[in-house]
């Protein structure tokens, strides 16, 4: 069952063009010219219930604009959106009871008060009774391991603690779909792992649909099975992460450690990416050459250690962005 359906979605922004200097300012004042920018162009996709989708792209690709249209924050220029059967712009309030959003760059907590005070306010916003709110706060506190931190003023918390509190705030009303907009930005690796684990558990336990945007490839690798890549407001790839990793670019990296310095020619379809002393990094296009053939080309009697790995996902994504 699809919980999100998007068809032919477009969003244009109008911005004033100003030439440099005072002359440009005068011209823009009395004879303004405008540029129409397609932030989102003819976007179409659907998301199934319980799916964990990574919606990624370079800065300015149209990710946040799309999320804002899906959540009713922005009005589209044209196109159709259905989220849980609602039109987000017409039924914003009804939809808000059933979706949540965590934005790594925008806080919804009162910074001078403990998070628990904000939670009680949010409970009122979602018409949750006092008893039910207390129960829900206790549940979230346990799952997110919030402990005493919800009773300390938010301004005194570390970024990681604050983000855990932010996530709890967005879940107070048990949303069926949760939009994460760069939730791990600026966090240390341990907190990142904790948050990823929590999101995974959330999806597993409550079948919550997760719509995820992040520039951190680790988030995507650890959490999402499907990836939509957008660039210049258009979808450039919509595929499973598995296909993206193993089929989209048929390249492998071979790290070889020799017992002495060796000199390899660029033969057998291999490309030497890096050579430092006895260590050599080779890139192989498996469409043109098998790994076995490449290894056969190496002076195997001098090999001390060998490691074959996929091209990092980050590089694959960067290459797709660059196309």
């Amino acid at each position: 069952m699809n919980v999100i359906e998007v068809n032919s979605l477009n969003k244009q922004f109008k911005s004033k063009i100003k030439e440099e200097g005072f002359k440009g300012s005068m011209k823009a004042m009395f004879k303004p010219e405008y540029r129409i920018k397609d932030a989102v162009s003819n976007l179409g996709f659907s998301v199934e219930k319980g799916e964990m989708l990574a919606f990624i792209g370079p800065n300015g690709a149209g990710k946040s604009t799309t999320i804002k249209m899906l959540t009713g924050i922005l009005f589209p220029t044209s196109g159709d959106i259905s989220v849980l059967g609602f039109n987000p712009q017409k039924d914003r309030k009804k939809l808000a009871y059933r979706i949540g959003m965590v934005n790594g760059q925008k806080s919804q907590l009162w910074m001078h008060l403990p998070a628990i005070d904000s939670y009680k306010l949010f409970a009122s916003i979602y018409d949750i009774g006092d008893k039910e709110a207390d129960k829900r706060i206790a549940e979230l506190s346990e799952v997110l391991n919030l402990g005493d931190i919800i009773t300390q003023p938010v301004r005194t918390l570390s970024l990681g603690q604050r983000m855990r509190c932010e996530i709890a705030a967005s879940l107070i009303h048990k949303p069926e779909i949760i939009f994460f907009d760069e939730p791990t930005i600026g966090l240390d690796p341990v907190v990142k792992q904790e948050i990823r684990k929590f999101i995974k558990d959330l999806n597993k336990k409550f079948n919550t649909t997760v719509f995820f945007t992040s520039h951190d490839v680790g988030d995507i690798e650890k959490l999402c099975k499907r990836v939509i890549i957008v660039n210049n407001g258009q979808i450039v790839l919509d595929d499973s992460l598995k296909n993206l990793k193993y089929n989209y670019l048929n390249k492998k990296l071979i790290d070889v450690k020799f017992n002495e310095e060796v000199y390899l020619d660029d033969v057998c379809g291999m490309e030497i990416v890096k050579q430092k002393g006895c260590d050599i990094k080779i890139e192989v296009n498996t469409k043109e050459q098998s790994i076995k053939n490449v290894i056969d080309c190496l002076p195997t009697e001098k090999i001390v250690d060998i490691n074959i790995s996929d091209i990092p996902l980050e590089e694959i994504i960067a290459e797709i962005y660059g196309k």
Partner: protein
Amino acid sequence: MLTVVKNYIKLLYKYKVLNISASMEYKVSFILQIVLMILNNASFLIVWGALFTVNKSIGGYEFKDVMLLWAISSSSFGFCYVLFGNGRKVMSLIINGELDVYLLQPKNLLFNVLVSETSISAIGDILYGYIILIILGADIKLWAMFSLFVVVSGIIMAMFGVIIHSLTFYLNNIKEFINNMEMLAVSFSIYPEGIFGGFVKLLLYTVIPTGFMVYIPVSVMRQFDMGLFLEVIAFAVFETIAAIVIFNSGLKRYGSGNMMNMRG
């Protein structure tokens, strides 16, 4: 319907408790904001007192009428920004894309935005009006009428603010225009109506609603007139509807944004 109203009242109460609690974290600042506002307002009446030693009547007002004018002006201003604390920030919320948080919540957007903040110094403004009533030795009837006008005038002031701030949706950054309009509304409200005439008076009963906010209330409190009383109520209803329509129409042009921020 009753449940919906009850839920909104509960939310309003929680917002006020939360905001006042947040300000009370810094108790010296909290108390000073209120006390200094009362003293600031009081200083103006000292000047007026000096003026009335020269003239018994200025613009048709005696000293106690000016005190009543200051009382209603101060308390309604205070009521407006204690209840609708975000009223003066609507423009910056629109420009900085800070309506996002409110748009994600299942409540009436304009109500949610306006009541989610509380001006602490405005508590001093409310108190100041009632201190004047005590000084004037007001009877129970005047207290009741005054309190009613504080609410109605406060709503007129808030909705006037919503209208001019909502023009941001269409005209982008109009900070100076908004500041001047807000200042004009307040400045005119602390002088006797009789000193203004012609075009200025017309402005004060049309574009700038000072006439409905303070002049008519003062007149009704001096001598009750049902017709004038209903005029103020009707204007408050009209302005509220206008503010809602203009804000909601403009919202379709909202462009959001990506500023990093914290609430406080």
